[in-house]
């Protein structure tokens, strides 16, 4: 290449690159995606994962149900409660209710037979009940602490029996001589207790990513609505008698249907595709009424939000950046990217105040087999209210397009006759 041509190419390269910077500088939404969103993610994820990577997570609060009435069992449970925050419950139902209502983070059930026939405590007669949102690290610490506590109780018993030779006997003793049964308490998630099924990753993932996917209808909705508005197609439809209400409602209907197709697809993925790769199969043993209600409410909220964004943005790029970015942030807060059980309690509270959080709460409750009216109805109502508010926000900038005069172009209406010159 001659020096002249090389100089030309270099100049072209420079000018074009400068043009890209100029365009970028005039695209605040694009810049927001590049800078603001990652910063927000750093903030959210740092708070979300705060307790996941620490070596000593806080011990969860516990509720105790002591079914073994032997004095050693009672004494052991009392000693635990003296050292750690704990409540006592009189029945399995009361403890289950307390865990479900998050009055306590975990339940400890000391079953009859905790004191074995050989006079040793049995760790396998202790059951830890975990709420569906407890952090795994915190649950693991509780399990380890309980196991250690039971072992110490066993050691004390052995020492008491051995008398003066205790230190010699304990030095040679293995765990099986100090503890009867497995050395660690068993763990059961509330979901498993209530549904009789085993907690699996797919059972958690499908509702989470379904919610996320449903909210992404903003992309196709914005594509159509912005084109219709910018090309004048909406106005033209209005001259054919179509009100903005009908125009919005038609999109609502179409994209709600799309959400249901998404749902079917995600269910198939969870049910059949995941097992093909060695994962668990999604259980579809769900309550049909709560299931339909939650999907419908989630879909309404997702489409409503998408319509509001599409109605208030001028270009598809703007809508895609705003809608996509907003969804990702909402998803992060709600617990889509990182399961809510990994979040510290204050982030869990925050995540309950986002539309995706309401949807995720309700749908996970349905998919995890423990839905009830108190869980589903408030969240479905919040989602429907959010959808209605979004639809109103979306209708507002379009309202002029459906002026009554346009819909009655074929009538003998006299326009603006009140203010004649």
């Amino acid at each position: 290449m001659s020096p002249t041509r090389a100089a030309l190419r270099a100049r072209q390269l420079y000018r074009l690159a400068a043009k890209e910077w100029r365009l970028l500088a005039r695209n605040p939404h694009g810049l927001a995606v590049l800078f603001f969103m990652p910063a927000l993610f750093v903030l959210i994820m740092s708070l979300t994962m705060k307790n996941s990577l620490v070596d000593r997570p806080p011990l969860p609060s516990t509720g105790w149900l002591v079914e073994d009435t032997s004095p050693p069992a009672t004494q052991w449970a009392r000693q635990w409660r003296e050292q750690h925050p704990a409540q006592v419950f009189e029945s399995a139902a009361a403890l289950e209710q307390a865990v479900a209502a998050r009055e306590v983070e975990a339940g400890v059930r000391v079953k009859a037979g905790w004191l074995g026939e050989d006079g040793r405590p049995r760790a396998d007669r202790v059951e830890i009940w975990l709420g569906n949102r407890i952090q795994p690290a915190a649950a693991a610490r509780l399990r380890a602490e309980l196991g250690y506590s039971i072992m110490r109780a066993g050691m004390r018993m052995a020492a008491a029996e051995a008398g003066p030779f205790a230190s010699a006997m304990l030095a040679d003793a293995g765990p099986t001589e100090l503890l009867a049964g497995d050395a660690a308490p068993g763990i059961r998630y509330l979901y498993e207790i209530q549904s009789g099924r085993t907690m699996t990753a797919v059972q958690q993932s499908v509702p989470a990513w379904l919610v996320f996917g449903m909210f992404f209808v903003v992309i196709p909705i914005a594509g159509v609505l912005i084109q219709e508005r910018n090309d004048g197609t909406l106005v033209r439809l209005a001259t054919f008698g179509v009100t903005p209400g009908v125009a919005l409602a038609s999109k609502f209907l179409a994209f709600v249907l799309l959400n249901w197709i998404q749902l079917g697809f995600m269910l198939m993925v969870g049910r059949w595709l995941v097992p093909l790769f060695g994962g668990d199969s999604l259980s579809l043993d769900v309550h049909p009424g709560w299931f339909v209600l939650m999907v419908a409410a989630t879909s309404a909220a997702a489409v409503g939000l998408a319509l509001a964004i599409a109605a208030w943005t001028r270009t598809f790029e703007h809508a895609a950046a705003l809608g996509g970015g907003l969804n990702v942030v909402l998803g992060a807060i709600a617990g889509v990217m990182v399961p809510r059980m990994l979040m510290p309690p204050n982030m869990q509270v925050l995540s309950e105040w986002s539309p995706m959080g309401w949807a995720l709460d309700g749908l996970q409750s349905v998919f995890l087999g423990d839905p009830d009216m108190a869980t589903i109805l408030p969240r479905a109502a919040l989602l429907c209210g959010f959808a209605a508010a979004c639809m109103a926000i979306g209708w507002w900038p379009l309202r002029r397009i459906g002026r009554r005069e346009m819909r009655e172009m074929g009538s003998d209406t006299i326009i603006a006759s009140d203010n004649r010159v």
Partner: protein
Amino acid sequence: MNPDGSVLVEAEGLLYQYPNSSAPAIDGVDLRLVAGEAIGLLGPNGAGKSTLIDLLIGLRHPSRGAIRRRAKPPPTIAWVPQEYALYPALECGENLRLFADMLDIDRREATRRIDAAIETCRLGEFIDRQAQRCSGGVRRRLNLAIALLAQPDVLLLDEPTAGVDPQSRAFLLDRVRELVRDGTAVLYASHYMEEVSDVCSRILLLDHGRVLASGELDALLASAGDGEPHADLEALFMHYTSRSLRD
């Protein structure tokens, strides 16, 4: 159709000012749309042509003034926007069916009107083709065909031939002339003076929202004011609007 020369739409003393604007976009405009007559709506960019059309179709509400329509039978008004106001991803036939289905007519009548619009705009071979895969000329014809589905008594055309080849332009102009001949009242907004001269018998020339000239085309051409008639419509246009560039 009503070729009897009756007034279908009458606008009187229209004034419209955009929010946050210091000057009105339309200021004291009078207009009569008469059956079987085409009015050329002329003006530089920003003169107020599109705003006037917005007022006539009801998209905007005049700040002052009145727009009246014939009471009985009420005229049907259709609008052909400057943009391709249709669905590019739909086939031409699907676009026509969609808009026809929006009208308050039964399906048989809708099919009849679709067939008529296809015939009028020669869209037969493009019915199964996506609009976005059609040429600009075909899309302009489809744009017009959609408006014709309403069987309008009044047709508002906003630069209907922008960006098409001479053949498509000639075809579209022929169709507009036929519509006028059949009794349709036409308001034809354009920057192409020869088109307006070809199609329109009356002129409404706007600038800065005000009427600079209005009346019979021939009379306006003859009334240059210095004794010599204007050579053509472009000369008349430049005479009134001057040569200064506009935004």
